[in-house]
């Protein structure tokens, strides 16, 4: 009996779980078992069986089919990762294989980081500290007075120093700024809406604004400006203090800003750990299945070409022949490239950006079309 174990036998019987597919990823998922058999037969026929022998076995076709499904999933999911990585970064790892992101989460997350810098949000605590300012002393070492004591010598990033002149609103009642709205003062102490035995005069708002501006201009023109400089941990305050007081400031601990901006270990950090898994074969639609079949055929063709071109020429009794291995490999590779290019084009066309553009175009065309429709005129 001739040894024909290297040849396709004309039948393809798939037994899931018995190692007929290299990875067994999709065994028994949906119609995979039936599809892998029918695709094997189809591929063999497309390669010329039974007119010519096929130097492959059914397990080779099964392997090609499994690889085709995996390649399809990989292409789809690489595209999905590109679409969703921004939204998923620093989020808890969640299986996104069949989920879709809303497209705003990533932007909001970015805004949080910007918010930390703008002191309007973020993930890092803005801390408060203070130093005791003494009369006549302008320079204070923030590291020695606060960083070493309260923050274990960690570097501070001072974001706000509360060293300002008393606000004009608190001072326009004094003898230099004029007086009048005692009700406002009462209100400051929480005694509004009560009879406090003070004169109550109804004044327009512009009166208040003018008074406050007058106070501020007076400070700017006639007095020293309240300001500060920080250099190498040392803060120099202006003007020279003429009394003892506590000066408060707000700061970030520098390393907190970095560590707080990182996601936890269990969160998505990059292209490699965003949670996309193998596709469920039963969820793939008809166009997808057709792509997979064609890709499996291209792989089979390439594989058959590899088998046939291991040797440059095949010996025959008294001579040698050249078989079509190289041609098959070339055709298989070309078909694979073409299929992947087509799939990528489809995916790009269905990106959020492109779909929105298409919708915009559609709306514009629709508007132009409607513009050309004559309006009905009713004559009563």
């Amino acid at each position, binding site marked *: 009996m001739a040894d024909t174990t290297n040849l396709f036998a004309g039948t393809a019987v798939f037994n899931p779980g018995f190692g007929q597919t290299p990875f067994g990823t999709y065994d028994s998922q949906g119609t995979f078992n039936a599809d892998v058999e029918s695709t094997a037969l189809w591929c063999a026929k497309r390669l010329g069986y039974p007119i010519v022998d096929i130097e492959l076995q059914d397990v080779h076709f099964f392997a090609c089919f499994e690889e085709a499904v995996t390649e399809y999933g990989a292409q789809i999911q690489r595209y999905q990762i590109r679409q969703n990585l921004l939204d998923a970064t620093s989020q808890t790892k969640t299986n996104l294989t069949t989920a879709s992101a809303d497209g705003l989460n990533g932007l909001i997350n970015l805004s949080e980081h910007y918010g930390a810098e703008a002191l309007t949000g973020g993930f890092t605590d803005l801390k408060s500290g203070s130093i005791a300012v003494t009369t006549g002393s302008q320079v204070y070492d923030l590291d020695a007075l606060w960083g070493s004591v309260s923050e274990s010598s960690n570097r501070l990033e001072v974001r706000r120093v509360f060293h300002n002149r008393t606000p004009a609103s608190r001072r326009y009642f004094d003898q230099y700024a004029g007086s009048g709205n005692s009700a406002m003062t009462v209100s400051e102490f929480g005694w509004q809406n009560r009879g406090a035995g003070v004169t109550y005069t109804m004044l327009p708002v512009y009166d208040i604004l003018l008074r406050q501006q007058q106070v501020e201009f007076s400070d700017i023109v006639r007095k020293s400006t309240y300001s500060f400089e920080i250099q190498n941990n040392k803060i120099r305050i202006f003007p020279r203090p003429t009394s003892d007081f506590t000066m408060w400031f707000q700061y970030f601990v520098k390393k907190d800003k970095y560590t707080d901006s990182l996601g936890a270990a269990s969160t998505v950090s990059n292209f490699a750990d965003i949670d996309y898994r193998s596709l469920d074969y039963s969820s793939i639609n008809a166009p997808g299945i057709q792509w997979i079949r064609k890709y499996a055929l291209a792989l089979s063709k390439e594989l058959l070409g590899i088998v046939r071109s291991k040797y440059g020429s095949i010996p*025959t*009794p*008294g001579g040698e022949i050249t078989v079509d291995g190289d041609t098959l490999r070339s055709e298989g590779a070309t078909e694979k490239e073409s299929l992947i290019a087509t799939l990528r084009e489809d995916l790009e066309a269905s990106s959020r950006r492109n779909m929105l553009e298409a919708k915009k175009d559609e709306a514009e065309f629709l508007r132009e079309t409607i513009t050309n429709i004559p309006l009905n005129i009713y004559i009563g």
Partner: protein
Amino acid sequence: MGLFGSYRDVRLFNLLNKELINEVIGISVDIYKSSLKDMDENLYGESINKVYFPGVRIACMVEVDEKSYVSDEFGVDFNKTARFNFLREELRTVANLKLEIGDIIGWDDAYWEIDTKSESQYIAGKNPNTDKGDGAHGGNFSVLCETHQTRKTKLNIEKIHRAYNNKLRNI
């Protein structure tokens, strides 16, 4: 141990050649082995009337040379030679016989007697049956036979009518 010419490779070559010989080229010949026990020999150990076993049909590759005519005192005759190249695996599995010099090959309504036989086409230069290595590489691949066309009348393989043709005689 060689990297090339393993039993898998040899098996692939055999399968490709089986397809080539049987299905692509599709030339079949009949091999007639002489039946020594059925032949009577004379005083010198010669057998005037040869007897052959029934033919065994097998596919092979054939290369035929042109006829060459010779003319001598007995009249005009011709010589014709051909090479029959057999796949050893096919001989083993289909015909189950060993070709020898003197065996007859029936092809193209003629009989060809084997003059020489060559069995030295080795895969990867090795014959696993004689190789001093692991014996798992290479292959003794083919049997190449040089033949000449022989007269049907001396073979007794088929009945030959040697009478005159009346029609020809009456011309």
